[in-house]
């Protein structure tokens, strides 16, 4: 064993203060992640001033732990209340809440937790073994490749939707993309659809929009006078704590036994997507969710749980992926690693290839911290699931108003602006209308998230090629991605055309 590794072992496992920091960060991460409106990035940004008094290992340990826990904790309100706690959970919000109504909440969360831990550990292993080689992959991605990647991500939203409601998913997606064009166009630096309203320059912030679309609209759908006297959001299960844990682990074991390839694939997919600057945990969850659902003929609860498991594996694995370009080149893979680079530089540590030689012990410590963070998430996560279970046993007439207040406060919290609360309200009404007519809401959120970058990359690619569309496909990786995107899109269009033709069998 090399000396830096021993040093790292001592730094991470041999110091009680690191253990304490990891434990506290885990609780803090779970707490912030489960409040809709507060993201993992915000959790880290709030922590930065405290990082000043910690040494690099402790600071990194805290950040890694709180992010991993926050991303998992985002699943808690998603499952219990259909409000995605962080954007990384939006992909499966509808699906997960459907299972909650059938009384499967705790079981689903148990599996989501073990899958998150599995994804996190897998991501860590990849980071340890292949980090510096994989970092080169990011070099193949210029704006053109990103354009195609985002397009593939968007088509996933349509693939996720089931059967003959596909046109509704597409319409939702287009609606999201159109909403994303509101505000100051990043490439033109000119306002669009702002009607001279300065608040609209920033566009429609997607976190308040997400809280409104999923959370407030669900509250509206639940408002019925007759029912709320007695009704509770169906809980149905009285699982003991021990059973919850054993079921969660046996769930993971079955997954790994039955489809080792699929689960690992979801994790690797997560690492790859997380590694690309500009993509991240949220897109990873979408793609993995779509990949798990694409070959499914009929919808059953087991299939849904399987797909959600894949998505949670992928979004946790993406976190480790984000560190690859950050450590190797100092290019942040996502906004969290951007902050981490800042914190490390504050400590006189500059990420880059040299860090692997000069600060080998620190690099090993980061790997070990990832392992520790994912392991400590297990007990704390189970406790959080248990506590969250109490929420759904509160009668609706007490719960719904408090949820509304949470939605209002959470959407205010992000930017400290009442305008965002208004956005949340409008989106809540829109989401309520859309769900009543069976339009899926996930694609609207994905459209909002990816709409801006997609248009930017498109116009940047065109600017680079002097306005010539050939510029979109004349790099090898871009051409491959373009072919994939075209295959998926024609597949979607073909099924739509087939549906349009009169079908004699019906």
């Amino acid at each position, binding site marked *: 064993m090399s000396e830096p590794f021993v040093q790292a072992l001592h730094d991470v496992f041999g110091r009680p203060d690191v253990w304490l920091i990891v434990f506290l960060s885990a609780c803090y991460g779970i707490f*912030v992640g489960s409040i809709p409106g507060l993201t993992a*990035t*915000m959790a880290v*940004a*709030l922590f930065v*001033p405290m990082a*000043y008094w910690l040494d690099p290992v402790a600071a990194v340990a805290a950040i890694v732990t709180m992010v991993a826990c926050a991303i998992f904790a985002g699943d808690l309100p998603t499952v219990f209340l259909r409000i995605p706690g962080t954007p990384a959970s939006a992909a499966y919000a509808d699906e997960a809440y459907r299972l909650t109504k059938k009384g499967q909440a705790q079981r689903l969360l148990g599996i989501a937790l073990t899958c998150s831990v599995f994804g996190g550990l897998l991501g860590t292993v990849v980071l340890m073994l292949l980090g510096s080689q994989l970092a080169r992959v990011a*070099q193949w991605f*210029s*704006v053109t490749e990103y354009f195609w990647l985002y397009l593939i991500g968007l088509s996933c939203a349509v693939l996720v939707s089931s059967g*003959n409601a596909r*046109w509704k998913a*597409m*319409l939702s997606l*287009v609606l999201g*993309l*159109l909403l994303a*064009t509101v*505000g*100051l166009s990043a*490439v*033109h*630096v000119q306002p669009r659809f702002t009607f001279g309203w*300065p608040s609209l320059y920033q*566009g429609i912030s997607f976190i308040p929009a997400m809280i409104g679309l999923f959370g407030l609209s669900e509250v509206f*759908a639940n408002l*019925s006078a*007759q029912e709320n006297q007695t009704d509770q959001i169906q809980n149905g299960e009285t699982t003991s704590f021990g059973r919850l844990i054993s079921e969660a682990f046996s769930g993971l074991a079955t997954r790994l036994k039955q489809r080792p390839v699929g689960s690992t694939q979801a994790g690797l997919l997560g690492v790859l997507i997380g590694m690309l*600057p500009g993509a991240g945990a949220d897109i990873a969850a979408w793609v993995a969710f779509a990949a798990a659902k694409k070959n499914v003929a009929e919808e059953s609860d087991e299939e849904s749980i399987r797909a959600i498991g894949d998505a949670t594996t992928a979004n946790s694995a993406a976190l480790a992926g984000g560190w690859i370009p950050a450590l190797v*080149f*100092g*290019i*942040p893979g996502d906004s969290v690693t*951007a902050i981490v*680079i800042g914190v490390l*530089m*504050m400590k*006189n540590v500059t990420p*880059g290839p040299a860090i692997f030689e000069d600060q080998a012990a620190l690099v090993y410590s980061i790997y070990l911290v990832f392992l520790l963070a994912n392991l400590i998430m297990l007990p704390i996560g189970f406790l959080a699931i248990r506590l969250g279970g109490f929420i759904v046993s509160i009668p609706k007439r007490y719960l719904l*108003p*408090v949820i*509304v*207040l949470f939605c*209002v*406060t959470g959407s*205010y919290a992000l*930017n*400290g602006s*009442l305008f965002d609360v208004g956005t949340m309200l409008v989106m809540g009404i829109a989401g*309520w209308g859309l769900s009543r007519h*069976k339009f899926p809401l996930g694609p609207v959120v994905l459209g909002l998230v990816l709409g801006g970058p997609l248009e*930017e990359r498109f116009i*940047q690619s*065109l*600017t680079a090629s*002097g*306005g010539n569309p050939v510029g979109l496909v004349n790099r090898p990786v871009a051409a491959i991605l373009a072919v994939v995107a075209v295959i998926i899109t024609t597949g979607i269009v073909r099924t*739509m055309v087939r*549906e*349009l033709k009169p079908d004699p069998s019906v």
Partner: protein
Amino acid sequence: MSRIAAICSLIACLTLSSCGREQQWPARPITLICPWSAGGGTDRVSRQMAVQLEAELGVPVNVVNATGGGGVTGHTRGATAVPDGYTLTMATVELNMLHWRGLCPITPRSFRPLTKLNEDSAAIFVLNSSPWSSVGDVESAVQNADQPLKASGTAAGGIWHLALAGWFSSRNLPTENVTWISINGSAPSLQELMAGGVDVVCCSIPEAQSLLDAGEIRCLGVMSDERCPAAPDVPTFKEQGVDWSMGGWRGLMYPKGVPEDRVGVMQSALAKITRSDEFKEFMTNAGFNVSVIQGEEFGEFLDTADEDFGRILNQPGMKQQQKAPVGRYFVPGILGALGVLIGLVGFVLSRRAGSPLVEGESVATRSETESPTDARLVVGFIVAILLFLIACQTVGYVIAGSALLLAMLLMLKTRVSWAALIVVVAVPGLYQLFAGVLGVPLPWGWLGW
């Protein structure tokens, strides 16, 4: 009887929990508006200043990231904030540029400048494998280019774009030989440089430090009078015979109209902080170039900078450079057409199918588990939230939030005593959670909380 008692105790609770009115300034938390997102350089400086101000003034200082619109949102909010001294803005160089580009009416004159904290000069970066080794090489490449050079570093019209375009036009080089690719931010621009999508990146040295240290990219020159302490090996433009300098600044400002005594308190706190070793150490470690100017001098600096930027931004070459290959309504147009097309397909499908199998089934399962929504309640909730929106800023979060929660609970026919109990527990709890623990400044209003 019990109802009246419950409401009375509720009011008593809310009043008691508010602290005493302000005797000395500052008496309540201060908000620091950062116009850029969490994790960036400006955010880091803002959060460092917040920590030190908190220690100096003895009240919490909360950073709010009012992002978007290329700085429009944050600067506008900072300039139009209530001038009671409780709102600070971390203004950046974009303040000198936004109004020239017609994006917002806010200028440096809309603010009361307090202290300039730092100034980072622009620098030119190329890949390590690039044939160019000096600023002159780039100039001759631009002069004799058969196809346009690709450059980036920030969005079109941003500070680094300006620095590059200003340099070329000051040397009378053909600006049409450079295509500026509008990429939001220096990190993705450097990523683009690594991927071979652009030839040159213009940004500040701290932003490119790690790639520079890694030997992946080279810095050809820095646009300042003196060498950058973070990279002392990099020659300046002046040393290479090019008389051109440009950089971005960051500084703290008040909105216009803050009482003079409060400005004084803040100004002296800032003076103390900027002289402290902690501040200097932080800035040096993070790679930011400290350049402190206070008060009126800062105002003069801003006026000069404003004139310079106006001159460069109004050059015909600059305006031409900002043109994108497709218009701003191109993409929304395509999306709209696509939406209409899909809508038509859907319309035909649903007309033909009547009620498709799956949809019919899901409607059935839904109606089993849920009773129909009461539209009156929905309207009631919406009105309640709207009233909250209107009233919140004036009366404050605690009062408006309590009223909202109480109204909703009563609409759902909760017993008044229960409703009052929930309000007393939930609203101050949420306030403490967000404002106390998480540092999100909620509106204070009448309670002056």
